[in-house]
């Protein structure tokens, strides 16, 4: 029994692994943002569209019919079949819907499963810096060590095969890439992906390719990593519906990989998740069957806004490499002499524009901010105007 004034010899309440995760430096902005009036947010990385109604309606109908139970662990067979068909049509890749495809709670879960399925304690996973915030965290949670490959604006934020190879040790297990990229909007050329495939093959590494933004490319073709020659055996492809079909809140995605890997991932999935949300799976079937025109229309619209924001950022003196994918612009803010966190905080307080500091995405993101342009044109214009005023004031 604990006596008054005596503290228990503390076993630390929180696990070391969890404590290692970097506290999100941007949470405070978002908390602040919620309490402020008149803020224009370029912060949230999700479409500003509601899900196309016919997709939502399919889910509503399924609820009316009483489809409210678990599905098979792997997902509704029809959804897996539709996913296989879609991947074959889009990228000419062949995966068996019965054994090589797993429906997950967004790519987030798929990424977590992939890491836990392949990583042993101390295994290293190589990834680009900057990168999506969950990448290093997922590796750490799985007991692995993230290894960063710096990328830069000069190289269009593409990760180079030779830079990967230089960091390979006998502990290296996998390469984790995500293109089109969050936060930079970078896409990888086919040749550069081929080079990475070569490195992976030579060193027998698994490649996890997060292609959630695959459909959002502008003026360039997306190359599906799994569609490259001779990579099938050691590739885990992650994809989903959130960005292309404006379905972020549904939480539905998938992992595609050879049988052995999917079986391992499914094992974890069945103990931790059971099955992806049933109504979201029904909606995803509808999306794959009839959602193509919606995607095309939304991409056209993102592209118009992309061109406006990239030009606008240049006009106010923030140099910005042209992003060919996703819905982010990643301008350099070094001309203000501020760190990206200072810039973001000051910009929010003084001009009520929310952007995300690049440093949230890794050391190489320092000096940049992420601006999501999935918001109305009027808001983009207003945000650019306010940012222009801000930059003028602080330009060094």
């Amino acid at each position, binding site marked *: 029994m604990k006596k008054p004034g005596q503290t228990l010899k503390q076993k630390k309440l929180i696990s070391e692994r969890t404590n290692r995760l970097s506290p999100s430096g*941007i*949470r405070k902005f978002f908390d602040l943002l919620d309490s402020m009036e008149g803020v224009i947010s370029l912060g949230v990385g999700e479409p*500003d569209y509601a899900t196309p109604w016919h997709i939502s309606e399919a889910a509503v109908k399924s609820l009316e019919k009483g489809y409210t139970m678990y599905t098979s662990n792997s997902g509704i067979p029809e959804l897996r079949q539709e996913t296989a068909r879609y991947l074959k049509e889009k990228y000419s890749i062949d995966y068996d819907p019965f054994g090589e495809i797993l429906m997950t709670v967004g790519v987030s879960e798929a990424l977590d499963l992939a890491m836990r399925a392949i990583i042993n304690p101390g295994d290293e996973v190589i990834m680009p810096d900057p990168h999506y915030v969950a990448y290093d965290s997922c590796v750490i949670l799985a007991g692995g060590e993230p290894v960063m490959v710096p990328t830069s604006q000069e190289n269009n934020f593409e990760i180079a095969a030779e830079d990967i190879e230089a960091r390979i040790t006998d502990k290296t297990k996998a390469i984790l890439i995500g293109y089109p990229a969050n936060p930079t909007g970078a896409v990888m050329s086919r040749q550069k992906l081929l080079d990475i495939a070569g490195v992976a093959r030579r060193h027998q590494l698994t490649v996890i390719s997060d292609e959630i933004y695959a459909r959002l490319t502008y003026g360039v073709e997306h190359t599906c990593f799994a569609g490259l020659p001779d990579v099938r055996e050691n590739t885990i492809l992650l994809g989903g519906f959130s960005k292309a079909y404006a379905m972020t809140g549904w939480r539905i995605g998938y992992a595609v990989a050879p049988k052995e890997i999917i079986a391992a991932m499914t094992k974890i999935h069945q103990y931790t998740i059971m099955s992806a949300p049933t109504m979201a799976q029904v909606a995803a079937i509808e999306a794959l069957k009839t959602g193509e025109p919606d995607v095309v229309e939304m991409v056209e619209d993102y592209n*118009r806004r992309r061109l406006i924001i990239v030009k606008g950022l240049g006009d106010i003196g923030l140099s910005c490499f042209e992003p060919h994918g996703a819905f982010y612009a990643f301008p350099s803010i070094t001309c203000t002499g501020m760190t990206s966190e200072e810039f973001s905080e000051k910009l929010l307080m003084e001009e009520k524009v929310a952007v995300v500091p690049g440093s949230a995405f890794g050391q190489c993101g320092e000096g940049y901010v992420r601006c999501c342009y999935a918001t109305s*044109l009027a808001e983009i*214009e207003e945000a650019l105007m306010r940012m222009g005023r801000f930059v003028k004031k602080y330009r060094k």
Partner: protein
Amino acid sequence: MLKDILKILENDARTTSQQIATMTGTPVSEVNKIIEQAEKDRIILKYKTVINWDRLEDEQVWALIEVRVKPEPEVGFDSIAERIARFEQVRSLYLASGTYDLLVVVVDKSEHKVADFVSQNLAHIEGVQGTVTHFVLKRYKDDGEILNGAEGVKRQPVIL
């Protein structure tokens, strides 16, 4: 290019030539030229605003009037339709298949005025054989815009 520009303007007529130029990667002068030509060709008819008048106190009555007509030799429905279209309270006019021929959308200040229009103007046009008037009780969606829907879903401030 013309279609791209029209799509942008149809969605927001206030988009500036400068913005359209950036969005389409076309010089401003070229954009202006294309728009002027489209105006001349009567592809672009007018730049209007979608207004939800119901939010104001203004009394405004909408009616859908089905009209059965006897087509005239040679010109068919067109000359009758043109005559109906001239009335300024006629907002839209369509030739339709089915149990009636013309559908007239009328907007006026009162039911009384609509009734006057039907009995004194419409019914007297030669060839008009009968009309059925439906007063609109509530407008839900007009010109592709939902009138009294939620003001867009508010995005939650999520972390990435």
